């Protein structure tokens, strides 16, 4: 009990005492996960929409692969990304293994199926008659796509929340491809693992508190936007 109490006190000291290392790790975490989320949403929503709005041979297989990807263990993703980025791998010439870019790539791979799968499901739940009505209103393909996304905006924000939660809390893949190098590629989850392993529970608790605060803050903001959207419907 004493360990936990001491840990909390130390955590508050680190948080409000302006510890540069802690803030650097927190900022790196936000940068890596935020960037990965942006890439995943920018690519995943259109890709999910293409699958949802078109009928083609093998569509069911594609949906099954996306759904499987949503449940893919991060360590497996980490292994695959590491294999591609390792010096002798297909993308080894880019020399990004053990950099934050490798961590961004791994998190994009984790988030992409989540964004695709959830946006696909949201679009499929729309009444086909609404799609027909939008086309009949005189919408071009691009206009139809934008109007349909507007119709599922509440579900899209839930998608973003789910993807953000998945990448910011992920530890296996980022350690495998980032190396958990202090001052360079260490993010909050990796740092918590390391500090716990060496018995510095107070620092681990402080980092965990920051991680939870970041997750809470991001979800609070998205929930606020989501509920505003609901009220406007």
């Amino acid at each position, binding site marked *: 009990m004493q360990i936990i109490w001491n840990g909390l006190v130390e955590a508050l000291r680190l948080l409000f005492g302006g510890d540069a290392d802690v803030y650097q790790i927190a900022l790196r975490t936000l940068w890596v996960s935020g960037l990965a989320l942006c890439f995943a949403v920018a690519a995943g929503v259109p890709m999910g929409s293409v699958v949802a709005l078109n009928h083609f041979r093998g569509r069911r297989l594609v949906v099954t692969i996306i759904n499987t990807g949503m449940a893919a263990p991060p360590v497996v993703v980490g292994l695959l990304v590491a294999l591609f980025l390792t010096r002798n791998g297909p993308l080894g010439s880019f020399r990004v293994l053990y950099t934050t870019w490798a961590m961004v790539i791994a998190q994009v791979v984790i988030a992409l199926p989540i964004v695709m799968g959830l946006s696909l499901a949201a679009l499929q739940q729309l009444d086909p008659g609404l799609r027909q009505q939008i086309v009949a*209103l*005189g919408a071009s393909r691009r206009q139809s796509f934008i109007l349909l996304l507007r119709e599922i905006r509440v579900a899209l924000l839930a998608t973003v929340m789910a993807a953000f939660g998945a990448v910011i809390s992920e530890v296996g893949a980022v350690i495998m491809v980032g190396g958990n190098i202090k001052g360079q590629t260490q993010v909050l989850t990796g740092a918590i693992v390391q500090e716990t392993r060496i018995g510095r529970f107070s620092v681990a608790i402080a980092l965990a508190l920051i991680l939870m605060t970041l997750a809470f803050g991001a979800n609070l903001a998205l929930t606020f936007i989501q509920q505003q959207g609901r009220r406007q419907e």
Partner: protein
Amino acid sequence: MSPSPSEAPVLAARDLRVVRGGRSLVHVEHFALAPGDVHVLLGANGAGKSTILKALNGLEPADGVLEFHGSVVGSAAARLALRRATAAVFQRPYLLAANVRDNVASGLRLRGLGRNAARQRALEALRLLGIAQLAGRKPGNLSGGEAQRVSIARALAVDPDVLFLDEPLAALDPPTRRALIIDLLRIFARGEMAVVWVTHDRDEAFAVGDRVSFLEGGRIVQTGVPVDVFAHPATTAFAEFLGLDTYLEGVILRGMDGSTRLRLDCGMEIACGDAPEGPAVACLPPEDVVLFASAPIEHSTSLRNVLPGMVNTISPVGRLLLIAVAAERLEVAALVTRAAADDLGLAVGMPIVAAFKAAAVHPIPRQERRPAMSSSGGGQS
């Protein structure tokens, strides 16, 4: 509002086919929509009405020729241009997740009109439908009738050359339907747009249509002015659809005096409407059959067919009663008011006399399955 035959059609189709999975769903050999015309596509469920409407609107890919203002609609760009010059309303209103005003403005916004100008036009369309007070409401706070009015206002806001209506009143209660029909007829009377109106409701078709086409199995089997088409259905399926309960099979014979008689398969002969000699099925509208407690005096009435019989069944049909009368060798149906039934003291098994004019018996030649035109509809569609 019936146009002159010389007017160039706004929309025309020739040999238009919708094929899905190798199966032809609809086949329109010829269709022409004149400016200002309200053309009703009438038919039972599954007849292909909505599919034809979507093919005419460019929503459903179709083979054949579709022309809009004389230009062939072939490419995807031409189909988009067609949809932007027209508007469609479906059975369900399908409103967007925005307030009523922005919903009505949405079609205009898609056509590139600025936000303020689109909202102004939307308000004018809402006023036209008498629902300007709903402008700030969300779709979830509207009744079914209000939502459908918003959907129609959205279509009218774009000032379409052709308005496509796919069973727009089917989900509404009778008073709401009546009120909306009155408003729509007022708007159509301006003659600013042509209308293709799909319905399975014959009364609705009769109320709104300048012309009506009856569909069977994905094909138009008869087109014409409603009063002619309804009086002279070209097929037994259409006659059944119109609620003509009595069918008499036989052979048409012409007398020396030029009168036409139908010799029934049972050997009996009845006077009937004009028709070419040969095998025929004749239908008899039940509202044209008159019942008497005893046979009318021959010279006191123009009813050429008088059949003594007895009441076989009495079935309520809305506020009326359908009386099946079993005559000596055939059964005819008569539609009477409840007051008339009370006056006659109708009861199952009682003797009764059924009488009807020769003109009430409408013969349909037995080679009925090929598409036919009503006498009034030949030139236009």
